């Protein structure tokens, strides 16, 4: 009943691009695929689309092998934008719609609808190369959805988009989801994932580190966060002495504490109040995806400069405790 990726592997020469990766995606949901550059996201997506064949393992959608499904099952937004630079926007979209077997008239209606929605109807007769990067990106998205695919596979759809276009694209994602489509997208921008995704997978150096519902992944960290602000800063120094509590961040405005599973976060509140300190803010939260990612991968998704250090310091695939910022 879903998109199932079952122990797929792919190697290019000596490089294991994807190494025994498995996960499942529920239909009608938005799924985030997280990893640094070169983690194997694009290769995995190409295998889902049957552009590449895995060396081992299988991929099925609603029980049918992806090698046997019709091509129009899938919509694809490649990471490297690919359109004919000198072809007009409408002609281009008509061409791709026709390749997927969409009738002329319904293609025409859909094209008009979406150009309107993306606020670019006046670009219909322009050549693609004359459009800005952001607008090309929107055309690329349209080329992926005009044939009404069941599953939309998108590689870094938000890269190089300004805030307005990001908003438009997010709304389009939600509309596709509401139409019952399944959306898979890769990114290293956690913000979009927090906002849109119901489930995620984190992949690093070809290996799957974790996958599942966002909430479950966050819970798998074995800790929750408490953000506590008091009227005087002196009133917080003793907090890390509480059992199962450690200081994560000491900020000017509040303290962020890690609370191990099994410890009731409310004990912090009680202890504070018992000491007669006045509390101005008390908040219980799951760790952010950024933190989850850092903890699993050992480095930030965006921080590529530290990649080599992190690789050298950590055994492959090991879970690690991040260096937390202590003041």
């Amino acid at each position, binding site marked *: 009943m879903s998109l199932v990726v079952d122990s797929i592997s792919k190697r290019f020469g000596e490089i294991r691009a994807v190494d025994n990766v498995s996960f499942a995606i529920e239909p009608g949901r938005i799924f985030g695929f997280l990893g640094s550059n070169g983690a194997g996201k694009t290769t995995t997506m190409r295998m889902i689309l049957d552009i590449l*064949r895995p060396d081992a393992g299988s991929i099925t959608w609603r029980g049918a092998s992806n090698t046997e499904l019709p*091509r129009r099952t899938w919509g694809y937004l490649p990471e490297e934008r690919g*359109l*004919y630079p000198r072809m007009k926007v409408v002609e281009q979209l008509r*061409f*791709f719609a026709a390749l997927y077997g969409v009738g002329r008239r319904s293609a025409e209606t859909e094209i008009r609808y979406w150009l309107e929605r993306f606020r670019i109807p006046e670009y219909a007769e322009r050549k693609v190369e004359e459009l800005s990067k952001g607008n090309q990106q929107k055309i690329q998205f349209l080329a992926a959805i005009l044939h009404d695919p069941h599953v939309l596979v998108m590689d870094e759809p938000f890269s190089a988009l300004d805030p307005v276009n990001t908003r438009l694209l997010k709304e389009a994602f939600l509309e596709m989801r509401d139409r019952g489509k399944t959306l898979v997208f890769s990114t290293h921008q956690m913000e979009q994932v927090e906002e849109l995704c119901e489930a995620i997978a984190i992949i690093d150096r070809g290996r799957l580190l974790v996958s599942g519902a966002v909430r479950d992944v966050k819970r798998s960290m074995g800790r929750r966060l408490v953000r506590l602000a008091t009227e005087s800063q002196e009133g917080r120094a003793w907090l890390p002495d509480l059992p199962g509590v450690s200081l994560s961040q000491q900020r000017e405005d509040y303290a962020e504490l890690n609370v191990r599973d099994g410890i009731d976060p409310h004990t912090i509140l009680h202890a504070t109040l018992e000491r007669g300190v006045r509390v101005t803010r008390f908040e219980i939260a799951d760790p952010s995806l950024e933190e989850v990612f850092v903890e699993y991968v050992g480095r930030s998704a965006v921080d590529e400069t530290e990649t080599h250090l992190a690789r050298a310091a950590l055994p492959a695939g090991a879970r690690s405790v991040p260096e937390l910022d202590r003041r």
Partner: protein
Amino acid sequence: MNQFLPNALLIMDREYRVRVNSRAFVIGTVLLAVLLAAGMLAPAVIGAIARDDPDRVAIYSGAQLDQDPIQAIQGVFLGGAAGNVSVFGAPEAQIVGVDDLRQAEAQVARGELHGLLTIDRRSDGTLAFRYVSADDATDPTRLLIQQGASALTIADRLSAAGLDPGQQAGVFRPPSFEAIELGGDGSGSNIYEAGGVGVVVVAIGLIVLAFVAIVTYGSWIAQSVAEEKSSRVMELLVTAATPFQLLAGKVLGTSLAALTQFAVVIAAATAGYVASGPLVQILGGNASPIFSLPSLSVVDVGLFALFFITAFLLYAVLFAGVGSLVSRQEDLQQALTPVMWLAVAGYGVSWVATSSLDSEWVRIISQVPFFSPFIMPIRILVGNAAAWEVGLSLVLLLGGTFVALWLAARLYRAGVLSYGQRPGIRQLWHAAREHT
């Protein structure tokens, strides 16, 4: 493979329209058409211009002769075409007599006269000729003048010996000479002897046409594939269509564009050829056209077309396959080199073969798919190919094309997404087998 046609046709349609609407295509086609038409008309025009103003050669005769030297030498020039000088090189000259030697010499010096021939009789009674001109020793005009001088001398000696002009005509009557050519069953081993200028023109035309078409339009295809790869449209295309559809659509679309260009250019050339006849008459030149086409049967023309199209497809799919292997436009030329050399080899070999069409190696090589399209049509043209040879060659060529198509479709699949790395033969083979 299901629903092969709609997508292949869509891709073909796009390819054709993009190509035909491109500025390079329009300009190239018009330029080629104009050039070829002009080339067909040029000989008639040049002939007419040259005829308007034949060289003038003056004769100053200080000797008493039985025969009019002006008429005699003019006669040599008129009959020259049949003589020692080749058809194309026959010079035309107007022979005029002069009385003022000094003035004539000055005119030659100023270039107003082509040359001046002075005839004197020495004290011993023999004739002495002196020819002043800018001609060198191999100049046909000078050779003809010299020939005329010998004729005059001989006639003069015969007169001195007492033979009257009527008897002399008997002496100079051409001999009865019959030449029998061996191995003459109408076929030739050599295009230059097989049937005149027309056969040579058609044979060379076939070779050059095939070569130019393969190299030019083949490069178009490779370039177009490489463009799709470098603009990354390819990634989208392979999810929307099968590699085979992409390959077929691309090759067919470009071939149609090539055919369009060919049709326009050949129509222009034909129009020029047809128009050159009347033009020659209008301009008052030689009434016969520059060359006459050999008579060809419909079967021959059909076979030429079949060889041409099949060969074109054979090379086209190879070009497409190679184009799919490069990731950057800059690498394209380098990657195409092996296929280019194959075409150049076919072209070069066919030139050598034109002068020894019945030798063993030509028979063998005209069965080899990459070479046969260059050589077999010429053998058909001169009529030295047996039917079974033509048939076998065609079957082998078709077979080779299918093998190339099979291979290219697999290369395509393996090549289109291999960005960055330059795949080695083994990796390609592996990738090709992966997607059967």
